[in-house]
């Protein structure tokens, strides 16, 4: 078991225990969040697990491991979405068994620019405020609000009868 120093050198932190606690609280939720962005369980788990490794490696420097984890997951999801766009791959099909309304949302969501998609998912699935999304996604808050406004306008246009 390793022990690392916290930012305050007078405080000793059991880094393994801290990470395990973080895992118990955050892992499943982070996988669901990543899945909602990517539509792939395998890719979502890969990203979240690598993000936990990121957290572990920086535990002695970061002040809020949970916040760092969320930022790492969203950042990796953004990279994955960007790779898909660059490679001109088609987004994955909606999962089987999804209610038709959710499938319809999925189709529209996958057509949104990646930052709009991230903002919409964090706001309406994650329940985060714009200022929190700004921190998680490393985007200025004003830009987050703009992404939400534009993303929601598209969703409204496509989903409302």
């Amino acid at each position, binding site marked *: 078991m390793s022990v690392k*120093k916290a930012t305050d*050198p007078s405080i000793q932190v059991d880094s393994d225990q801290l*990470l395990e606690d973080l*895992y118990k609280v955050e*892992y*499943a939720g982070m*996988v*669901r*969040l*990543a*899945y*909602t962005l990517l539509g792939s*369980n395998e890719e*979502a*788990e890969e990203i*979240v*697990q*690598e993000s*936990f*490794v*990121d957290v*572990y*490696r*920086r535990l*002695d*420097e*970061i*002040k809020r491991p949970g916040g*760092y984890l969320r*930022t790492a997951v969203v950042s990796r999801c953004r990279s994955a979405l*960007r790779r898909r766009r660059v490679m001109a791959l088609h987004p994955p099909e909606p*999962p089987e068994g*999804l*209610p038709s*309304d*959710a499938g319809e*949302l*999925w189709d529209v969501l996958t057509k949104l*620019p*990646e*930052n*709009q998609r991230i903002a*919409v*998912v964090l706001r*309406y*699935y994650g329940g985060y405020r714009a200022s929190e999304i*700004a*921190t998680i996604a*490393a*985007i*200025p*808050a004003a*830009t987050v609000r*703009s*992404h939400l406004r534009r993303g*929601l306008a598209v*969703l*409204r246009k496509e*989903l*409302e009868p």
Partner: protein
Amino acid sequence: MSRTTERVSRDLGQIADQATPSSSAWDSIRTRIDAQTDEPDVHVLRLNAEDKEVRTRPWLAVAAVAAAVVSLAVVVGVVVMSGDEDSTSEMATEAPPTDPEAATEAPATDTETASDLELATQFLHDLHSLDAQAVTVMEADAIVSYMAARSTDDIPGLQGVMEARGSEFTVENCEEVAGRGAAADDESTTRVECDLTFEDAISKAAGLGPYPGSLATVWIEDGAVTLLTLRLDFRQWFPEVGGPFGAWLSEAHPEDQRVMHGPEGDHPAVTAVSVALWEQYTAEYIAEKYG
């Protein structure tokens, strides 16, 4: 909450419920951690754009953090890929002004006419012109939360260590990766990614490097840099340069090595004595091994 947002929330929840988090994920994470224990760090530095200091003096704050840690010391030849044209243009082949005031003011003028791509490359190029005096002006704690410095007081020392080791990052190539002018959407934020190569006095003496793999991402909104992320990759450099030097140091000067690395042993100490030792032993090592 409107009808649309209610539906979006409900449907997103249904999509998320399709995820099936693995019950053995903890073992997988532990395996990944164990496999990476011996690898050197990859540093990610993030500057929070919402920070007051950043809003009021973005150039100074962003540049100060990065200059302190990476010391983009001698950037000679920043090659800018111009969109989908094959041609390249070379810019910033001369050292920028050494006056910190001039260095922080100059980009603001450039902002009016330069493209985001040019703005980002010029920004990275200007980092090295900031000296310790300018660095100490920075006061925002939030922007150092991800770096090795324990406080802003450490920043000049870190920069001193980098200089003592002859560390240099060179911007090799910049590319606009998203946002205005580069993507189908009309986002107001532009991201410019720049590949960095790294070398130091020892690697140059040994004929090794420069080492690729590091990446700077400059975020630009309305003509101003709002965020900088640096991913510094020393994984190839460490076994070839950093590791052997550390081994030599522990043999030849074990007491001084403890002074150079500080009490935790994982980052360079940032005292004046440490900086002097880094400079002295880097030169001694090069003379002994490659002189």
